[in-house]
């Protein structure tokens, strides 16, 4: 059995990149400050020293050019891993992502592969204000042709990043800023976690909570609180939104009869609403209470800590919402 150590989320990602680049010379890493600086959050640390400037490229602040170059290089046979420093900046380069990367294979009759991984950061809680705090994964899940990966633990981060790099499609890999320092057990050897397989974080019988990324941790906190009050919660982390493990969620809701979806992205037309709709379609007869969402209201993320705290989902809000649905028996 492989050696398990406690390492951080950022170390797990870094290790995945080192190991995959070692294995596959077609992998190149590009982005702002990924070389000399090692990434502003440290994810690409040591890669330049180990693999050199041909494979680890510090780019100018030209997102359209370097995200697009990732698409073109992938089309031409490389396996680029490109960093978009904050997901908030996708506006600068969205065409290359959703009109080019996402649609090329389909438009060209399945004759091409785009094995591109875009890594980016999400998440609020640092008073980074409206243009550096968003959790915009729903918008990418909305568009056909992009796989959406949202890890919540160091173990998942490593295994999912390795799968992402090996997968032959365009993907966006979302790293929550508050998770970088989180520690957890991670095997030393490379391993791949398949996409579309949910992880049941804790089993329960009264209510199902679906959450991703940092919100998995808030959901688990809430579940511990609720346990003390005799409410048994099942927490499910789908880990990838595209593909999405519907069956795991349906199976759980058929057992518990209640669903709360926790999602740090904006509420309107988001991931949480989509999961709620799927479950309403598929499990209507099993539901004992209305499906509830704990999300970020559709307002820009404010700077002031008091305002930011007001709008973000957290364990306390999850507990409150779960109590509402459990009452409605």
């Amino acid at each position, binding site marked *: 059995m492989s050696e398990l150590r406690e390492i951080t989320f950022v170390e797990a990602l870094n290790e995945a990149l080192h190991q995959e680049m070692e294995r596959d010379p077609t992998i190149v890493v590009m982005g*702002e*400050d990924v*070389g*000399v*600086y*090692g990434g*502003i959050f440290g994810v690409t640390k040591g890669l330049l020293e180990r693999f050199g400037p041909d494979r680890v490229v*510090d780019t*100018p*602040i*030209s*997102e*359209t*050019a370097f995200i697009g170059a990732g698409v073109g290089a992938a089309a031409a046979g490389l396996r680029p891993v490109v960093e978009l420093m904050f997901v*908030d*900046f996708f*506006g*600068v380069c969205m065409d290359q992502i959703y009109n080019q990367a996402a649609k090329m294979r389909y438009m060209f009759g399945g004759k091409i592969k785009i094995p591109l991984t875009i890594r980016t950061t999400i998440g609020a809680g*640092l*008073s*980074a*204000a*409206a*243009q*550096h705090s968003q959790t915009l994964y729903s918008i990418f899940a909305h568009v056909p042709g992009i796989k959406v990966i949202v890890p919540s633990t160091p173990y998942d981060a490593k295994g999912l990043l390795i799968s992402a790099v090996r997968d032959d499609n365009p993907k966006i890999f979302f790293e929550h800023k508050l998770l970088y320092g989180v520690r957890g057990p991670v095997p030393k050897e490379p391993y791949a976690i398949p996409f579309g397989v949910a992880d049941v974080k804790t089993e329960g019988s009264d209510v199902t909570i679906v959450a991703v990324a940092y919100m998995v941790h808030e959901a688990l906190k809430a579940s511990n609180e609720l346990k003390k009050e005799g409410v048994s919660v099942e927490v499910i982390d789908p880990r990838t939104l595209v593909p999405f493990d519907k069956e795991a969620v349906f199976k759980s809701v058929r057992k518990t009869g209640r669903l709360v979806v926790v999602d740090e992205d904006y509420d309107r037309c988001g991931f949480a609403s989509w999961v709620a709709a799927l479950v309403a379609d598929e499990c209507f007869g099993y539901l004992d209470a209305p499906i509830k969402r704990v999300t970020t*209201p*559709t*307002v*820009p993320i*404010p*700077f*002031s*800590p*008091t*305002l930011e*705290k*007001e*709008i973000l989902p957290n364990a306390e809000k999850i507990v409150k919402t779960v109590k509402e649905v459990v009452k409605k028996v």
Partner: protein
Amino acid sequence: MLTQDKLLEMYYKMVLIRAFEDRVHELFVQGRIPGFVHLYAGEEAVAVGVTSHLRKGDYITSTHRGHGHCIAMGVDIKGMMAELFGRKSGTCRGKGGSMHIADFEVGMLGANGIVGAGGPLAVGAAFAAKYRGSGDVVVCFAGDGAQNQGAVLESLNAAAIWKLPLIFVVEDNQYAISLRSLSSTKLQPRISTARSVAERAVAFGIPSVTVDGMDVLAVYEAAKAAVERARAGEGPSLLDCKTYRYYGHFEGDPMVYRSVEEVEEWKKRDPIKLFRERLVRGGVVEEVLDDIRRKASLEVEEAVRFAEESPYPEPSEAYTDVFTDPYY
């Protein structure tokens, strides 16, 4: 000819920016200011040299490193400090923070979290000024890193073909985070002796000049010509100002990409020191300059007190201002 009053006002603004930034640095280290903070210390001559030509009705667009632009335009520093503290009395009621201070009363169209995003906004503001025929001008401040953003290059072209009253001011502080401007921008020394984005502007049909951004009077002179040209309806110009930031890219930056010696070398040509020497040579007595410095420090202390005594916004304010209507 610059009057003595004008010179002293410029000195005051530079000193006020420095005092503000030094104090914000301390406050950040002490954990009293949250969020992402980018300081302007070292670059004061650029903001002050350029904005000294502006009048009511003119606009500027700014960057993530916007405190200096705000102070140069006359934004009240009490409101700014309260904004940095996330208080209700802040310039933007605590909703924006350091990266998003705007004050339309004084023509400050906003700091910006998106590198290069000020370019198109400046084009629009200059379009409006031209449309109104008011003779007002717009200044677009942007870093060396921002010059490689498509939005900025598209803006240069738009400003040129529409002959807009727009001055592009490049703040080449040598780095975009860790990337040296010399390695992000490939240019041949044909027009000027320095490798410079000023040469790019020429290709867009925009007259340009490379300026010593540590010398406020040099910046002032270069900006004078550009602003006059814009007011006269002759179109855009670009000033490429060579300068340096003293603190890290953001507060908390370990600065692995540059040496202490390099920073010290630039500090020898500190813009405030250089200007002070010039003023003294021109006959200004040292005590006058010391008084100005003291006044600036006191104002900054007053601003900190004001900020800390101000209440946080009520949570309900999170839901206002999304639209002009109360509905969000």
